[in-house]
């Protein structure tokens, strides 16, 4: 029987090298609408590179991306359908948050309702915000934008523990509208929120079914 391809993002055969250094040999990730997919991996295993390859920021030697099983996916303009929050701050420094939100068609008042502190930051330029504030604003903007899939690269980094619950709650709420791919080194937070889990190691992807798999593959100690 043919698998239903609706609401599926398939990333396969991603091969990426920088000179002699092979980062990804044959990486794959499959994500579904309605699910949170986690990608774990040690530092330098190519998690961010994989996401950047999907978005077109890095050109890999090979990649295969299909959305909803369609015959051909427009790689070049994938940002219209897949939104990505990179590790680095990405909103231009000279912009205000409401300007950025307007470009992404996201309601700024929603952010204010989610976290009141942003009410008095609406006239501040992005460069005047703290790293944590900006991270929260970027996370909310990407997650609430109209996209079929969202990729969140380290959403829990530089965030006070008190906000982690809110981030997880919002991810769980939004997964009903889209597919979400998330990675972070705070793997306990990831384990709490994911439905499917993958581990990147030595350029290959391994599907994780239990905590024991993470131990066996050397990601965590017993």
């Amino acid at each position, binding site marked *: 029987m043919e698998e239903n391809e609706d609401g599926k993002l398939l990333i396969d055969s991603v091969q990426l090298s920088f000179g002699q250094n092979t980062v990804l040999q044959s990486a794959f990730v499959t994500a579904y609408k309605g699910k949170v997919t986690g990608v774990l991996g040690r530092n330098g295993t190519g998690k961010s590179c994989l996401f950047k390859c999907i*978005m077109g*920021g890095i050109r890999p030697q090979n990649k295969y991306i299909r959305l909803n099983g369609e015959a051909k996916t427009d790689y*070049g303009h994938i940002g219209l359908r897949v939104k*990505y929050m*990179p590790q*680095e701050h*990405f909103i231009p420094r000279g912009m205000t948050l409401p300007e950025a939100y307007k470009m*992404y068609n996201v309601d700024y008042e929603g952010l204010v309702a989610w976290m009141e502190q942003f009410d008095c930051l609406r006239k501040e330029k992005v460069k005047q915000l703290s790293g944590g504030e900006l991270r929260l604003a970027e996370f909310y903007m990407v997650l609430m934008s109209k996209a079929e899939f969202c990729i969140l690269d380290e959403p829990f980094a530089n965030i006070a523990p008190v906000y982690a619950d809110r981030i997880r709650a919002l991810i769980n709420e939004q997964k009903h509208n889209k597919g979400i791919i998330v990675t972070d080194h705070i793997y306990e937070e990831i384990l709490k929120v994911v439905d499917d889990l993958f581990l990147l190691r030595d350029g290959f992807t391994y599907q994780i079914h239990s905590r024991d798999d993470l131990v066996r593959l050397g990601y965590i100690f017993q």
Partner: protein
Amino acid sequence: MTLFGKIALSFRYGSEYLIASGVVSLIAAINGNLHPEVLFGWKVTKVLSSLIIMYLFVTFDRKGRIYFYLNLGISRLEYYLIPVALDLVIFWGLLLLFAPLSKLLLSMM
């Protein structure tokens, strides 16, 4: 996103490139028209300087910023090529603009 939208966006993210390259365009267009015998040299200088300025733009561009624009639906190629194309169109426009002006100046001298 329409091509017009992408061009409008490139004025935002490519402003540093367009300003630096625009200064070179202005100098090249004025000098090239005042001294037609070296116009070709100025055109070559303009193209080479555009490549150098683009290299600096790519090197010093804030690491994550490109993804703000890729998320809006422009491709990486468009992100870099649209400002370059715009710059060359502006240069061509400046050459045409200064041609009658320099002819007038040369006839007065």
